């Protein structure tokens, strides 16, 4: 076993800030939606706006970090091991089989994670950001008049935003559970807090097939 830094300082900051913001946005958002009542409608709107702007700033920094460090490649979806990973969650995990995808610093996400996280980043988050910005700005008051995009009704914007919210919340539920499916029940959580995780040595019986191409990060398969 080897102790490795998997999640760098910014990554952890980004992850946990995002976690807090998403949960806070969900609570205030579903209050605005009329599903729950906690802060009161007016306050919920105000808090939701503040959290949304904070999230946008965070997203700007996260994109910058991912681009400059090249870490965005971690999310490139792959077919490799996808089936094995799915089978692991359906069967292997109950038989105490080993994880089909070995975590390495160069490839810390399994194929299912890659697909889901890439989907979040490419589809859900942009859809939420776009519909959220339209929600705020499809009408915008200037000093003497309200300027308006040629959008008559809030309905489509609001429904897209609601769909995204449901998907994010479902992701959150499953994501929270999958924390427990690491090497040990708590190893994933510890890694995201401290940044370090004990990774199995690459030389202990497993064949390592690394690609010559730089963007194809190492995949480990049995």
């Amino acid at each position, binding site marked *: 076993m080897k102790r490795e830094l998997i999640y760098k300082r910014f990554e952890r900051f980004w992850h946990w800030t995002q976690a807090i913001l998403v949960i806070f946005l969900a609570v205030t958002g579903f209050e*605005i*939606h*009329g599903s729950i009542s906690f802060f*009161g*409608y*007016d306050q919920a*709107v105000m808090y939701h706006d503040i959290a949304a702007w904070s999230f946008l*700033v965070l997203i*700007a*920094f996260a994109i*910058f970090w991912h681009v*400059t460090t090249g870490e965005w490649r971690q999310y490139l979806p792959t077919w490799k091991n996808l089936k094995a990973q799915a089978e692991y*969650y359906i069967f292997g*995990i*109950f*038989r*105490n089989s080993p994880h089909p995808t070995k975590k390495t610093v160069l490839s810390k996400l399994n194929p299912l994670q890659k697909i889901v996280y890439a989907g979040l980043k490419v589809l859900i988050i942009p859809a939420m950001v776009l519909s959220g910005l339209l929600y705020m700005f499809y*009408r*915008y*008051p*200037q*000093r*003497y*008049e*309200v300027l*308006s995009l040629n959008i*008559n*009704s*809030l*309905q489509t914007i*609001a*429904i897209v935003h*609601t*769909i995204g*919210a*449901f*998907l994010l*919340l*479902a992701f959150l*539920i*499953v994501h929270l*559970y999958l924390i*427990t499916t690491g090497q040990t029940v708590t190893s994933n959580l510890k890694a995201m807090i401290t940044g370090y995780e004990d990774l199995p040595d690459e030389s202990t019986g497993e064949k390592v097939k690394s690609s010559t191409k730089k963007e194809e990060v190492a995949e480990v398969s049995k």
Partner: protein
Amino acid sequence: MKRIFLPLFMLLVFVGMILTALHKNSSDTPPLLKLKAEYSVRHKSSVDHSLFPELKKKFKRPQDVTAACISCHNGRADEVMKSSHWNWERTEYIVGKGIRSLGKRNVLNNFCIGITSNEQSCSRCHAGYGYSNGPSYFKDSLNVDCLACHDNSGTYMKMNEGAGMPDTSVNLNYVAQHVGRPTRTNCGTCHFFGGGGNNVKHGDLEEALFDPTRDVDVHMASDGEDMQCVDCHTASKHQMLGKMYSVSSMNRNRVTCEGCHSSMPHSDDILNEHTLKVACQTCHIPVIAKVNPTKVYWDWSTAGKLENGKPFELKDSAGTDIYMSIKGSFKWIRMLKPDYIWFNGTASHYLLGDKFDPSKPLVLNQLYGSYDDPDSKIYPVKIHRANQIYDTQFDYLIQPKVYSAKPGDGGFWGDFDWERAAREGMKAVDLPFSGHYGFTRTTMYWPANHMVSPKEQAVECHTRNDGRLATLEGFYLPGRDYNPLVEQLGGGLLALSLLGVLIHGGGRILVSRKKKVTK
């Protein structure tokens, strides 16, 4: 690390630029303070009318007063004679009906119904002396009643059932010497008592506005701005700004809040954005009839019951009439939460002789508007419902003669005979009466414009969701509306996720226990 510094700096600058662009400067002097300063200047009469010899000579008839007024203010009576206050009708365009003459003279309502054949009583509120339907009355400028609007002595009043003549108790010389700019008392004497009693018709115009507190009306408050009706209902050549949709149909000559307050009066962007679709009145008039109740239902069909051959009245515990033999049964509400409609400033009207379907409630003044119409906004209205007389054979509303000068003249209030009252009234409006009558449900809409509350009492988001807008259709209201399919699928997805996680986790726990046991 150095490589990262420049891009990071540029990013910060970029974010900063966006935030600066979105930030708006607040205006220097609050506009409300400017308005307060402007309206705190009290109007002062430029001359002392009590010194004019013309007003000291004895007036035999009220028309003599008018002659004295005109002797200096020449041409003014002619201006009055072009106004709605005088003509009680104006030329209006009604969608689907074309250009019609519309006003008190010919429109039916669901209160005392209509003035034709009842002029002797109704015209107490006409700005003239000795009202009659003959053309000579309306053409004689000496019939113009200057005093009703310009009395500042507080002693002028019109005779009950006197066709607009002053009460015999009035000292015409004293009143004529104390004239000036119209006050709330002048306007309120008629406009607060429309429909035959205090606050019967409007709901937002009542005798409490003679001397209101700030909570009742923030503009007219005696302890505040103390604004008079004519501060907003300004006039040029005696043509007043403003009108009511009970007797008009076009989007013109309206008094607007925006005229003084602008359409962007809030410091909060979200509130300003609302002005696109929400009228000021909607949030700033959270309740009407704040002091005395307003009539919301009038059932004429129960009128005419007599006790020992005599008409009687019943009052509720608060002293409000709930039954009158001459008028029927009523319902009143104090602190009335208005209803809300989309309204674009145009209205339709039921006109005398229009046939209708008696199986449905008949709307007498349909206010037009919808969310999709860019001219429409949400407005607060008082809805007045009634059960009133109509011709069951011809399917049109009946103009009954209700006022009775003496028993036996056919007026319902003297003879309590609906058939006779209907016959006399329909004769007066020149429409056939089949001899068969019944009672039908009617509805009127009265936009609420007065009794503006202090801003602290305005409707807020969370009170907005207290069901006020529950029935307003055609748009998506956050917190109220949703897509049922999305809610079901979304809720299902969450439930499935939770269930899946529980089953999966439960399975793992079971398996690990088994393994421990087997070990």
